[in-house]
């Protein structure tokens, strides 16, 4: 298959995942829509063209690790895991419901396919660092990928981890930042200006790649570069459109933590056809 075909297939897959995200959040009547849709392309590329994972052996010691630090966009992760065959698609519609494995925020003991438990922001990267350091010292080749929001760069714990990854030369660690410029109270640059995350990571000793996080070709290219031997941890700053694919949700921070109603769901699915 040539590159173009791969990208086309990934885009098709992403579309299906987006449809499920809308349906499951609508069914749950609550959940984080915008971030999940914004990161769907990244989730898809990771699980269908990058991560070494096996749905039949989720705890394979040679697997790659995906740590979702911004746990609130778990509908995106859940829908991707189902698409990749980790569990039945039907389970997606138990999201946020009583005794579901798909808790409102990811809980490893409820859904053993997960690597961590997350939701409270700022602590995922340190856990990814612990995993990466352990694997590196054991001379293992598993990759460790940590997904983060831009908003959680307000947290001190995030910067503690960024320094740590540099100190221990975690060349097996890849961070993908969802740079969608929104957080709960509004625009990131108004709430707490982050400025250039690129400059910040560079000055902390990391490698950095900026991409359009909704352009499948750019995502695939960046992930390819991430596998090239490097001596540093690497951050991909994925500039994404929150609510991507559903025009009336795009760039509107009100959709950060809102579920679509019946009519909005219909319109959204129409747009995602």
């Amino acid at each position, binding site marked *: 298959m040539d590159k173009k075909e791969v990208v086309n297939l990934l885009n098709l897959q992403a579309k299906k995942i987006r449809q499920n995200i809308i349906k499951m959040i609508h069914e749950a009547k609550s959940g984080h829509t915008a971030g999940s849709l914004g990161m769907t392309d990244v989730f898809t590329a990771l699980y269908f063209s990058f991560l070494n994972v096996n749905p039949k052996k989720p705890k394979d010691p040679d697997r790659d690790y995906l740590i979702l630090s911004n746990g609130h966009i778990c509908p995106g992760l859940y829908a991707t895991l189902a698409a990749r065959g980790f569990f039945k698609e039907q389970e997606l519609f138990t999201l946020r419901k009583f005794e579901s494995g798909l808790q409102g925020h990811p809980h490893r003991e409820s859904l053993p396919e997960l690597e961590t438990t997350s939701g409270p922001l700022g602590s995922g990267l340190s856990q990814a*660092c*612990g*995993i990466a350091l352990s694997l590196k010292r054991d001379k293992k080749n598993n990759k460790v990928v940590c997904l983060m929001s831009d908003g959680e760069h307000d947290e001190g*714990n995030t910067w503690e981890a960024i320094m740590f990854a540099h100190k221990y030369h975690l060349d097996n660690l890849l961070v993908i930042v969802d740079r969608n410029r929104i957080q709960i109270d509004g625009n990131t640059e108004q709430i707490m200006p982050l400025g250039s995350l690129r400059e910040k990571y560079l000055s902390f000793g990391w490698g950095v790649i900026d991409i359009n996080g909704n352009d499948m070709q750019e995502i695939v290219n960046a992930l390819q570069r991430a596998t090239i031997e490097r001596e540093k941890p690497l951050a991909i700053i994925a500039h994404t459109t929150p609510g991507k694919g559903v025009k009336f949700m795009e760039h509107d921070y009100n959709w950060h933590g809102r579920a679509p109603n019946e009519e909005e769901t219909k319109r959204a699915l129409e747009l995602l056809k």
Partner: protein
Amino acid sequence: MKELKATREGFGEGLLLAAKQNTAIWALTADLASSTGLLEFSKEYPERFVEVGVAEQNLVTVASGLAATGKIPFATSFAVFSPGRNWEQIRTTICYNNQSVKIIGSHAGLGVGEDGATHQALEDVALMRVLPNMDVIVPCDFIQAKKATIAISKTKKPTYLRLTRQKSQIITKETDKFEIGKAQILRKGQKDTVIIIGCGPLLAEALIAAEELKKEKISCTIINLHTIKPLDEQTILTLAKKTGKIITIEDHQIVGGLGSAISELLSEKLNVKYKMKIMGVENKFGESGTPEELYEKYKLNSKYIKQEVKKILK
């Protein structure tokens, strides 16, 4: 004079012994390796040692990541900082996530002394006891700290181990058994006497008080409740039922500590009339001074234990 040693020293020795047996044991520090007894470990096992700098939130979350790959990390700091500063990280990434991380909080209690209130953790047991999945252990001396360290390295549970800075009396023997969740009877009194239940180095004060009271023909049973969670309900209830007179002592706030845990148990499950006194710090912060001066001011030495025993017998 008997040799004095700190519980944190016992931890350092215990960790070396445990690490020799089990290569999965790692140790982390937040710029306090020498104070928490990790220097030897860092030299002996550099590949299993992690220095995170002054960053306690990172300390426990990196530890959670290590545990996710099967390691048994011991995350060490002063108790005011860990679990004081990083409580939510411990709650979510260790307890709710159920990873086998050992939180080692040293320099707990008024016994820290001269550094003053900012560095005297008096709330740590309460903070850790309230978390589901977490075991809470407070060894009473050097020997017990060593044994407790080895014992917790063998469980898969998140655990909090509370340690102290000051050199204190050694009141247990190398041959004494240490079992998580099983209270140790340090001194057995006659029947119908007062039961003193405590944890940590203050138990030495309880032993002095009991010895002096013996001269006045008052006999006390002393229980070393080194494991505050899970609570040894059976031992406590059996003894409490016999006498109905219980005094607890700890170098910690009265709210949420050992006395509080026992009170919760007795109020629900002890079906006889009983009297209880909880000795601890009464809703105050500590201050600078020697441990002896502070225990006198905060009424936590043998003199005050004797007073409380006499009061409860009235």
